[in-house]
């Protein structure tokens, strides 16, 4: 039985539709990340699961039970807010115990539960302090403690790391992952950071304008995005998306990428594409991730289909672990992710190779993957 099922969920504010029919289900112990640009409705979706906002139509089930009409406190959920939302007038211990106090749990039991959670999160020395006396990371821990102590069926996280500095964010990300692995809880997590989404999730749901673009495992989302938006949104640096044309003279379809001052690059169509849809002369968008563009020597040895070409190097960005090289193809910039010790000079010609196993084709009119 799924821990969380959302079916045909719609949310309207007046005539404005924020959520346009969302269907997601999450198995017990799963980690669902809702990701999308700001204003895509991901926080609204989380709030409807929490019961902080009503739904216009559709159904939310937690542990098989319909919760649409239930008060937030009766849904057996816990939420960690972006601003942590710690009660400033209460000590850390009181903050963690407040929910239990409201449910009438006896004091001795509350203290025991608080001590247990404090131990898990290593905040025992902070229990007597006020939130204002804590650092950002400590507040984050307390906010998680307040959620953990409840032992809910579903945890909800609303961009919990966005208020932390870069270093702490990575630390807390690992911490959340560890917590999930240790406790095996079911988590729904909202973020606009696609790296958080990739690293934490067992399942990612990409939203745009209140519509679900794709739901799948991180590798599905990353390797087989269902449309241009998902392809562009996930991954950093973003996937290279180039305009091309299908050329089909009798045999297998070829993709032609025009170039200024150079002969066009002609590639065999990627195996991922449905060849029957590739009629001669069709416009397509050719998508390839930067790590699948390399120099011919370093291309994945197991790749079945590789296409080599030569191009002028425009920009070289050494990033320590890798070197990003920008070239121009089909009127657009194309980023290649090369080994850090690759020797390339700006303005010089260099040999590149596409790993076509990883390449994708999209239909420019529908933006869907072919």
């Amino acid at each position, binding site marked *: 039985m799924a821990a969380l099922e959302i079916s045909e969920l719609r949310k309207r504010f007046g005539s404005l539709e924020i959520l346009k029919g969302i269907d997601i289900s999450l198995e017990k112990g799963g980690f669902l990340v809702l990701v999308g640009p700001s204003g895509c409705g991901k926080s609204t979706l989380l709030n409807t699961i*929490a*019961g*902080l906002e009503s739904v216009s139509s559709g159904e939310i089930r937690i542990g098989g039970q319909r919760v649409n009409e239930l*008060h*937030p*406190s*009766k849904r057996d*959920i*816990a*939420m960690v*807010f*972006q*601003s942590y*939302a710690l*009660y*400033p*007038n209460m000590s850390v211990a009181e903050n963690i115990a*407040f*929910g239990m106090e*409201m*449910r009438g749990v006896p004091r001795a039991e509350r203290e025991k539960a608080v001590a247990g959670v404090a131990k898990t999160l290593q905040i025992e020395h902070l229990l007597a302090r006020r939130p204002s006396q804590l650092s950002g990371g400590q507040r984050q821990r307390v906010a998680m403690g*307040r959620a953990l102590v409840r032992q809910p069926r579903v945890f909800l996280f609303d961009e919990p790391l966005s208020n932390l500095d870069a270093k702490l964010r990575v630390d807390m990300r690992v911490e959340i992952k560890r917590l999930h692995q240790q406790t095996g809880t079911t988590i729904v997590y909202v973020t606009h950071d696609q790296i958080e989404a990739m690293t934490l999730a067992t399942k990612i749901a990409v939203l745009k304008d209140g519509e679900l673009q794709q739901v799948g495992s991180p590798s599905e989302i990353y390797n087989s995005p269902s449309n241009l938006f998902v392809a562009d949104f996930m991954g950093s640096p973003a996937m290279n998306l180039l305009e091309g044309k299908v050329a089909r003279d009798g045999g297998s379809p070829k993709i032609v990428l025009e170039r200024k001052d150079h002969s066009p690059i002609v590639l065999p169509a990627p195996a991922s594409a449905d060849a029957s849809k590739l009629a001669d002369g069709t416009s397509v968008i050719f998508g390839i991730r930067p790590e699948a563009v390399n120099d011919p020597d370093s291309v994945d040895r197991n790749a079945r289909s590789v296409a080599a070409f030569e191009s002028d190097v425009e920009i070289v960005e050494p990033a320590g672990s890798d070197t990003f090289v920008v070239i121009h193809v089909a009127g657009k910039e194309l980023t290649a992710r090369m080994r850090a010790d690759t020797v390339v000079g700006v303005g010089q010609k260099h040999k590149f190779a596409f790993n076509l196993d990883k390449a994708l084709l999209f239909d420019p009119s529908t933006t869907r993957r072919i």
Partner: protein
Amino acid sequence: MTAAADVLAAAPSREPARHSMTTRVVIYALLVFFAIVYLLPLIVMVMTSLKPLDEVTGGNMFYFPHDLTFEPWTKAWGTTCVGLTCEGIKVYVWNSVKMVVPAVLISTLLGALNGYVLTKWRFPGHKLVFGMMLFACFIPFQSVLIPMATILGRLGEIGQALTDATGYSFGFGNPTVNLVLVHVVYGLGFTTLFFRNYYETFPTELIKAAQIDGASFFQIFRRILLPNSAPIFIVTVIYQFTNIWNDFLFGSTFAAGDSSPMTVALYNIVNTSTGVIEYNVNMAAAIIAAVPTLIVYILAGRYFVRGLMAGAVKG
């Protein structure tokens, strides 16, 4: 655009001020002059209240007391005549306290509750409701006198009926209760305005977190909102206390005789048409009447400034 302009305009004035000696002298002279202007009435009042009557009528009011006496104070407090009864103003101070304390507390708490609902439990039309409450702040005292008198008269009838039926009026028609009601109703616009603006900037996520924790409407109010409202609470209490304590119009209209508040009694003492006018007793009585508001300011004044600033800075 205006914010940016403000920043630009403010920047040059941040330089350390280098005033010449003359500027400094002029500034201090003006400050001292106005300090004296403001202090003079109080000084004269205190000095007069400490003089025997013949020294007041015979001497100059700016002279220091020759025969220092506290007799005017004891007389004002205990034995001076207000109207026909000669028991001093202590009864009326007590009347005022009985009226002010409940009126301030009730109007402040209701204002806090209104502010809470208007910001955190918004309902369709909340803006209209708030607009109308704001409008209440602009209604002049005088214009509500007659409608209010009608309502209080009706309440008095109910009180009479209850007394006939049960032997007890349950507070209906009691002049002090009437005044509390009038001041609560009149003060609600202001207290709601204060609290709404304060709670507008109160993080809504805290309310949501408390909801998930299972706190009810009033539990959230009492456990989360009120403990974090100290600055605005103090501002509102000071504002309401001063206004209600100093009110004369409602007091003189709706509470006559023995139940009238301090301000009305003071007027009756000063305005007596029989016998000698005892300026020293009048001054002592006036100072006694002003002391509670002074105390409130001294105890909580810094919060008043801080609270008003907090509201002013946030846009």
